[in-house]
């Protein structure tokens, strides 16, 4: 079994995020960076699928050298090989998808396991776009994955419920939060990760990419939450709900 796991480098979800001066992106740099949490779950799931058996897990990141620590971390967790795809293009789903598609054609994996979204842009599109592009089946928002022979059965989260789907390999799975709890790499594995194969290729080697036609015009933080109020009694509460919050008629 050969599995590709694309990983994005994102701001730590505990970090304080602020919008940049131009108001078109978040302020990059200065905060701790992590493997996008959903992608870390994807790496873990790939490891569990392989379960120490024959095969290869290839972790891929698009961008440049800055993602090397995250790729190495995935190698320390147990992935076998890393591919860093260098590109100058802004990392939007329209840019990421064709590059991943070209890599999949080159590597011919049995499965792509990836996070359902990256927590910086929150687009949540790449898994679906990739499956469409490859004309592969997809199972999104996975909370459970079972593989028997060539058949993959995936429990998927849905609004207000779950759905179970099955497909034959190859295919694309996108991972949700409940799927697993990623392992902490052991110290000796961190040391060994440096010796694992790590390829750097350019976007040109994968057919090149055009900038995304989508431009972010502005970005704003969510409105500040107002401090709560303590009211004297139920009547005062009802009055406020009716007159101020206007949630009661």
């Amino acid at each position, binding site marked *: 079994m050969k599995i590709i796991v694309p990983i994005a480098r994102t701001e730590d979800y505990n970090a304080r995020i602020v919008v940049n001066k131009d108001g078109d992106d978040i302020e990059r740099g200065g905060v701790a960076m992590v493997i996008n949490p959903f992608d870390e779950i994807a790496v873990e799931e790939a490891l569990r699928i392989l379960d120490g058996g024959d095969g290869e897990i290839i972790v891929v990141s698009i961008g440049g050298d800055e993602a090397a620590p995250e790729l190495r971390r995935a190698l320390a967790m147990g992935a076998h090989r890393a591919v860093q795809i260098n590109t100058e293009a802004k990392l939007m789903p329209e840019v990421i998808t064709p590059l991943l598609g070209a890599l999949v054609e080159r590597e011919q994996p049995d499965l792509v396991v990836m996070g359902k979204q990256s927590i910086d842009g929150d687009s949540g599109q790449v898994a679906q776009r990739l499956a469409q592009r490859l004309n592969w089946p997809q199972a999104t928002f996975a909370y459970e994955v079972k593989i028997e022979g060539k058949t993959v059965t995936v429990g998927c989260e849905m609004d207000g419920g779950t759905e179970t789907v099955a497909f034959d390999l190859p295919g694309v799975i996108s991972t949700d939060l409940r799927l697993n709890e990623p392992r902490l790499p*052991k*110290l000796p594995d961190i*040391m060994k990760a440096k010796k694992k194969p790590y390829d750097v290729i350019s976007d040109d080697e994968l057919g090149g990419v055009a900038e995304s036609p989508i431009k972010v015009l502005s970005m704003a933080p969510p409105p500040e939450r107002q401090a709560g109020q303590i009211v004297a009694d139920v009547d005062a509460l009802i009055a406020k709900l009716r007159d101020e919050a206007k949630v009661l008629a």
Partner: protein
Amino acid sequence: MIAFGLTEDQLEYQRMARQFIAQNVTPNAGHWDETGHFPKDEIRSAWENGLLNLCIPDSVGGAGMPLVDTLIISEEISYGCVGYSTSCMANELALTPVVIGADEDQKRKFLKPFVDEFKLAAFCLSEPGAGSDAASLRTTAKREGDEWVINGQKQWITNATHADFYTVFATVDREAGHRGITLFAVPRNTPGITIAPHENKMGQRCSDTAPISFDNVRVPADHCIGGPGNGWKIAMRTLDFSRPLVAMSAVGVARRALEESIKYAKERKTFGKPIGQHQAIGFMLSDMAAKTQAARLLALEAAWRTDQGLPANKEASFAKAMCADWCMEICTDAVQIFGGYGYTKEYPVEKLMRDAKLIQIYEGTSQIQRVVISRELMR
């Protein structure tokens, strides 16, 4: 050239250790402190994750980690609970003399088991009558045929109860002073070893400290490490490793006290504003932060010197003295910032203050560090 940044590898070790400690140690530290429970399972877990015995060279399958990297990890471990960290560090302390003094056969014999299995070790130098003046130790070793026979009392031995392996300093010739001191590797199951009940301590209560007595304890000749009369040299060289390490554990405690204090100073309001905005508290926090960073740099420099093979005796004492003393000041200030709440077990800072005190005492008291430094200065 001078560089203060951590390498990518060091950042990964730090991140991994931080996460491990946040999951396995920090949430339990208060309970261990209350009950005096020895967290053997969690120490085993540190071993499973490769965080123990970092001094063992790669020639026998160990991590062979540079001391600077070990310090970076130690800060994280100590941040969670320095009592736990002391138990982990006791392994480094006990095994380092073997790394320094043993030949290859002895390294394979005594260190390899720590790579293959989870085991604890203890460093047995101090005695009831010989602490600061360790060279005046009374424990004797006598050669009888193919064996050494050890007799004497050791005091304050960290991990004593749980260790499988002791490194024991004894004299082969009391008349010779420190030139008679000799290092022995002593397995726990050797007949004649008695461990007294462990001490009921002020702080670092989850660490195990107990007296050990050696009554006609016989070990084979090849258990003498580095040759008769070379023990003191090995012990002194060990300090170049252990003092920076203990110094960095103080940095971990100090950082914890600082972070807890900043958090509290933002939450707690008096006279209409968060207490951190009262200048007296704000300046206290500033000093705590500056001392923590200064302490970290002193410890790292001492470790770096040891890694480079440079003389590190004085710098190790700089680090041990200042890191321990600043840590004590920082923890005392942390309790002050928390006011009445700081004096209760509801918040973690009173534990930090009790834990910190020990760092000024073991591995050479703060006074002894100054004795070492002044002696170097007056040479």
